[in-house]
């Protein structure tokens, strides 16, 4: 297990390093150049050259990469071209916002989806299962922005219970921010609910066919003991992995939802950075997104290993 842990963590570091190299190279391939972005279209060649030198753009590629990497690792992520502000606090604040949204979405989605999936799986082929399968398929099929707009129109504008916009003032307390967070979390949760629910259902169905379930039944165990002690322990393994991975998606991948609700998350910051050709900001944002994603995967792997004695004990 220890060897496994070390290997996974090393792999995690390697992933981040390689991604940073790829992202650094890719950002350079974006159309348009930094000078035009910063100085405007009619800038003097001399000013352009001075800017290039100032930003280190005249250096060879790997020197640039090395400089950026050492800065990034020491916490100096450079300044945003567009906002003229240090990048790290900017990204971190947005990361915090995204995290808040993700956790609420997770709390809304996970318990009911696992329960629904379990119940559907135990009643395979029956009415409840059919309704669940159909409903979850529809839920997965509705694009996030459509779901968001429906929620805004019905819940916020129609019933007037919750605010339609999620733009939270930076100094708002959690209690003040919460009502504004519910609709966007609900939108994200809708997708997750269907996804996790379907996965749980499939896992339960597969495990119910395994021979050890018969052994458990023929021991005379009560039905709920068979389900909760024997079946779920195995059936939820893939589900737990997926939940951990979706945390990565919830934090760094909610561009559309954040836009619909005007929520100041990491996704919206990235869109802004790309629109402005703000290279250092893109880099910083992408790296944080990638880190969150890789971390979620790492946690998923470790969790799977910890819960599965076959991996934990080899």
């Amino acid at each position, binding site marked *: 297990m220890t*060897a*496994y842990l070390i*290997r996974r963590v090393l*792999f995690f570091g390697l992933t981040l390093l390689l991604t940073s190299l790829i992202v650094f190279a890719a950002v350079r391939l974006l159309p348009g150049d930094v000078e035009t972005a910063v100085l405007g279209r009619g800038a003097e060649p001399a000013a352009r050259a001075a800017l290039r030198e100032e930003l280190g753009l005249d250096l060879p590629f790997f020197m640039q990469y090395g400089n950026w990497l050492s800065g990034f690792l020491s916490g100096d992520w450079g300044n945003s071209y567009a906002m003229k502000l240090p990048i790290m606090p900017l990204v971190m604040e947005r990361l915090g916002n995204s995290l808040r949204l993700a956790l609420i979405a997770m709390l809304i989605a996970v318990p009911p989806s696992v329960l629904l999936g379990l119940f559907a799986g135990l009643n395979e082929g029956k009415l409840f299962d059919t309704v669940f399968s159909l409903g979850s398929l529809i839920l997965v099929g509705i694009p996030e922005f459509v779901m968001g707009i429906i929620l805004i129109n019905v819940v916020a504008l129609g019933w007037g219970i919750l605010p339609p916009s999620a733009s939270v003032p930076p100094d708002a307390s959690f209690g003040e921010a919460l009502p504004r967070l519910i609709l966007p979390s609900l939108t994200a949760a809708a997708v997750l609910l269907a996804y996790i629910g379907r996965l749980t259902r499939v896992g339960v169905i597969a495990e119910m066919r*395994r*021979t*050890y379930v*018969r*052994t*458990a*039944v*023929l*021991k*005379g*165990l*009560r039905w709920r*003991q068979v389900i909760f*002690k*024997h079946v779920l*322990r*195995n059936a939820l393994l893939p589900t737990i992995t997926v939940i951990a991975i979706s945390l990565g998606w919830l934090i760094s991948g909610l561009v559309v939802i954040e836009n619909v609700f005007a929520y100041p998350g990491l996704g919206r910051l990235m869109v802004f950075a790309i629109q402005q050709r703000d290279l250092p900001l893109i880099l910083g944002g992408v790296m944080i997104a990638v880190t969150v994603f890789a971390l979620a995967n790492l946690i998923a792997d470790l969790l799977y290993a910890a*819960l*599965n*004695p*076959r991996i934990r*004990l*080899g």
Partner: protein
Amino acid sequence: MEAPILSIENLTVAYRLQGKWLEAVREVSLCVSAAQTYGIVGESGSGKSTLVQAVMGYLSGNGAVRSGAIRFEGEDWLHTPRRRREQLWGARLSMVPQDPLSALNPALTVGEQIAELVQRHTEDTHNAAYGRAIEMLRRVKLPDPEGAARRYPHQISGGQQQRALIAMALASPDLRLLVLDEPTTSLDVTTEAAILDLFAELQDDHRAATLFVTHNLGVVARMCQRVAVLYAGEVMEDAPTETLYHKALHPYTRLLLRAVPRIGDHSTLQAIPGRIPSLRKRPSACVFAPRCPVAIDLCHAQKPPLERAKDGHLVRCHRWHEIAEGSLRVEEAPSVAKRREIQSTEVTFFDQLFSAEQNGAQATIMRAEHLRVQYGVRGLLGRLLGKKLPFRAVDDVSMRVPRGKTLGLVGESGSGKTTFARSLIGLIEIESGEAHLLEMPLRGTPRQRTKATLKAMQMIFQHPEESLNPNRTVGQALSRPLMTLSGMARPEAERAAADLLRAVSLPADYLGRFPRELSGGEKQRVAIARAFAAQPALILCDEPVSSLDVSVQASILNLLAQLQAQHEVAYLFISHDLAVVGYLADYIAVIYRGQLVERGKAESFFTPPHHPYTEALLASIPLPDPQAKQRRIRLPDDQPTGGVPSGCRFHPRCPRYLGEICQRQAPPWHTDEQGRHYRCHIPPHELTVLQTEDGA
């Protein structure tokens, strides 16, 4: 006699498929009383699993009891509500299943899985129940029961898993009925013998009625007082074990007993033609009539009743009177199989057969020298990420296969026998050593090999369904090697494919069929035909009959023998079953943990001296004869983990362990006067004395 614990009366169980009821068990009646072991023998499709499920009161979804009754201790078991059943399951009746690993929950410790049963049926606290679990593990003779209780199923060996399940089944002090559903089928023969002993021993304590369901006639002969033979869902014959094995009255029983290979018996096996009818096509008259050599018109027109032939001997056949009188013969007269006079020149040749040093024997077609195969190292990235330590599955194996002969390679699971064959054919990389086929080096993957090498060696696998492409017809499967390896044009190849089918006794219209339309035995015939398509000099047969029913197995073995006689092809015949190998092989080699421990000519192989491991194998085989005398040698369960033992690899399990020398020194090869070779610290004359005097 006291009232039976279990009585089954006229039971019919059916499955509902596409709106129709298909009967898997028909009108079965039997009674099992306390301390009795009742055997149910049947091949696949006989309905024995369905019967087990019905008895346990746990039929799978679309199955239902259509008529008849099951009484458990007098209680109407079919109408017992689920709640009551839950109270009885595990307490008064329990079951030991076939495949122990899949029957245990991978995510719970062994001790916990037993303890929860104890806790369910008693007032015990968790600690007390866990203590009882450990006590049970001790009773089933697991070494280190406390340690075993803490382990997860995958951390203990197959034999130990099965012991844990037995501990579970017997944990209740109130046990009345024990159902054993092929409990040793997935185990190695040495483990099987130890587990069977354990059943017999424990039954003296619990005195529960035991229903022993199996396909293995040898296991039944050893374990049961009474046997019912099941065929296509019906009881064909039901008699005390002695009677059944020596005075069977039903043609099916008699033929089945003639289809099992027996050690030391070289008369030709008699195969039963045809196959068990599928659920949809059960004849309404006698179900065995379509395959019966003595069926008359009446058999196809009218269903025979289950008649009482003698006290306690029931038989379902229209002609049992004639068989009982001896006026009707079901079996063919025994004939001695091919072989087996090895000429004197061959004896000197045979001495060289396995030695790697000598070279140049004319008739050798394949020689392997100091072959080693290693698992667990795969490139640089593999080394970085790999979790397993390298493991040498084949370690310094040398052998030769002579032209037109069969070399049987015997070993239990994990012995390296299959790895050896796969390395020869190029599916696994050879680490070191050399192998030559007709003086062509065997190196690299099949893709890297020359056409001549590929053509000269073919392989037949254990599971024909996995080696035949489900989307290709039989004709396509056969003509492909003819075109690619023998360079035939398509029309010519198609004609040749038809000839091949005829050679394996399949009708020509099978050319257009897909593998899913064939039975297991027919698929294996197609696989054999395909192996012969390239006209090879050597065929590697990897457990080719292990997945087949006894009656089908005999026909495949006979087919292999017949084709060998016609085509002068050599076989490397790999099997865990010494009786099967003994039937077919000219030479036999025994492999243990990647090394050969014994090799010899087949005809003298079954007399001492033996390597102690071979001796244990021979003593473990369940013989299909209740009167058979067999020495009792049992090996401790193999440990699944841990490295290769030092010195002699067999020393941790060896019943003839001498002392420190076995631990420290690799044993030398000995040769006795008959040219038999084995590897042990005990010299031949001593071993012969040891192995002839005690026991026997």
